[in-house]
């Protein structure tokens, strides 16, 4: 055996187990999902997945004439458009506060604010369902300031804001620590120079900190949009997509189609999501490259 063949054999020994498992449980499902989206496969074909008919783009055209799917697209965009800026503003505000020279209890605050990130959504849903009861904790607090709170999870107008709030609570810890790392890399003498020049705290934040934080901000925006476009867990554990479809997201719609046995439709819906995520990441990386 030649040296070259020997080296190839060694390399494949090292990555063989990974490649075998990755190909079977990663790549194959991705390809399989794309091909399912152009066939009429249903739950009844599970034993004979190759004995199905080619239907072309029928599922995709069906999707874009299905009012439930269009509603799911609008809901997903609603969640992304409100959820991402809200998550970023809260994460940045806390990161700036933690970075503004407090030494005492900084680690304590960071751990506390980060805690929701590590908790199981199923467990946390038990508590949040209670918080959102008509006479639950959130409405009791609102009542103190004289606001009569809605029946959050059963009111189609308030179900989405309720899930957005819960999602922001669950996720802001991640951008918070990324922002903290970004803030710590800003040279202190730049802010000091701005202060010497008579800039107020707000002015130096606006014209020194924010511009220098731009790469971090874009990384956070990319990560959040990839994550938030897949919006699924909150409607799954809290509202089952309801009431009246007001929290059905694209992912949830795909899961529902899977539940009905319409595997072709489910796959097509999931590929709409792949396209959206691919496009958005591409655009954001172009902007990122142009500005960086």
């Amino acid at each position, binding site marked *: 055996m030649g040296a070259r063949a020997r080296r190839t054999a060694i390399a494949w020994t*090292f990555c063989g187990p990974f490649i075998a498992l990755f190909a079977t449980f990663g790549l194959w499902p991705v390809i399989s999902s794309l091909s399912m989206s152009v066939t009429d496969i249903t739950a009844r074909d599970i034993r004979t997945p190759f004995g199905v008919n080619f239907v072309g783009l029928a599922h995709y055209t069906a999707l874009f004439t299905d009012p439930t799917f269009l509603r799911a697209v609008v809901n997903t965009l609603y969640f992304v458009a409100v959820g991402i800026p809200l998550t970023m503003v809260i994460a940045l505000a806390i990161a700036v506060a933690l970075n503004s020279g407090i030494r005492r209890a900084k680690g304590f605050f960071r751990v506390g604010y980060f805690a929701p990130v590590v908790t199981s959504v199923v467990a946390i849903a038990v508590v949040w369902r209670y918080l959102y009861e008509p006479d639950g904790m959130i409405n009791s607090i609102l009542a103190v300031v004289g606001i009569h709170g809605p029946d959050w999870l059963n009111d189609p107008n308030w179900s989405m804001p309720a899930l957005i709030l819960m999602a922001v609570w669950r996720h802001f810890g991640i951008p918070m620590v990324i922002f903290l790392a970004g803030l710590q890399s800003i040279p202190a003498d730049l802010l000091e120079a701005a202060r010497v020049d008579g800039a107020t705290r707000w002015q130096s934040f606006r014209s020194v900190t924010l511009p220098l934080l731009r790469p971090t901000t874009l990384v956070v925006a990319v990560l959040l949009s990839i994550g938030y476009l897949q919006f699924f867990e909150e409607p799954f554990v809290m509202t089952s997509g309801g009431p009246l479809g007001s929290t059905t997201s694209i992912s949830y719609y795909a899961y529902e189609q899977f539940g009905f046995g319409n595997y072709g439709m489910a796959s097509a819906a999931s590929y709409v999501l792949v396209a959206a995520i691919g496009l958005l990441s591409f655009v954001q990386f172009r902007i990122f490259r142009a500005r960086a």
Partner: protein
Amino acid sequence: MTATTVSTVASASGVKAATRLRPARILLYGALALGLVATLAPFAWMFLGSIKPTGEIVANPSVWLPRSPTFGNFQQLLSKQNFALYFFNSTLVAVTCVAGNLLFSSMAGYAFAKLEFAGKRLLFGLVLAMLIIPGVTTFVPLFVLVSNLGLSNSYLGLILPFVVTPLGVFLMRQFINDVPDSLVEAARLDGAGDARIFLRVVLPLCRPPLATLAILTFLAQWNNFLWPLVIAQTEDHYTLPVALALFSVGANGTNYGLLLSGAVTVVTPIVLLFLVLQKQFIQGIANTGLK
């Protein structure tokens, strides 16, 4: 002389800044503390509720502190519900996935970073692309595949799809790539083969990414619920989140004492792990932006 003047001016302005900043500082601490209370309130409610009898949990107006604290809810979880078994299942699945990810990702990471083979760039490109593929896209074919392999309702069916992840290989490859080639070459000159180089030279340096990967994998698997929910069809294969999810929609949906103590059982191990390894958790998630 000049030095003295400068230091006097500096300390004077320092004193001035300190006195002027004090109210602002108090305000800052106050705001941070208020935010923290709001963030942690759901946890407090969960932990306090788990030791209340159901009557107290649903009492209106609600009471925060348990009047007659009890461990009855937890006793019921263990005696009437099979939570000890679900706990074992969750641990088994998470630990096996951690072991698989550490082993296979570090091996593959070594091959991708330090060895040459045909198709390397294409394969690594596929690993990167896989990082942004949404879970729902692979879900249906994965279900068909695992069913046809006869692995639904089995531990293997729960574990195999997650025993390697693109994130793991990506993390290990990036780290091993930064290990100087000279170290590897020096070992090779001393007559070491790749197995020896991997085990004795590269792996001992990889503790930080291995710790990150172990934490991220454990966290993801401990909290994973959608896949186990469709794969585990009988009680003996339920993981904790599956049991809790099914529990809260069934006849026990209003048994808040049981639900809250179940939630505490799911959350406590991971929160304890987080408190012990907080630095590694936070850095791992900050570096990858994923959980």
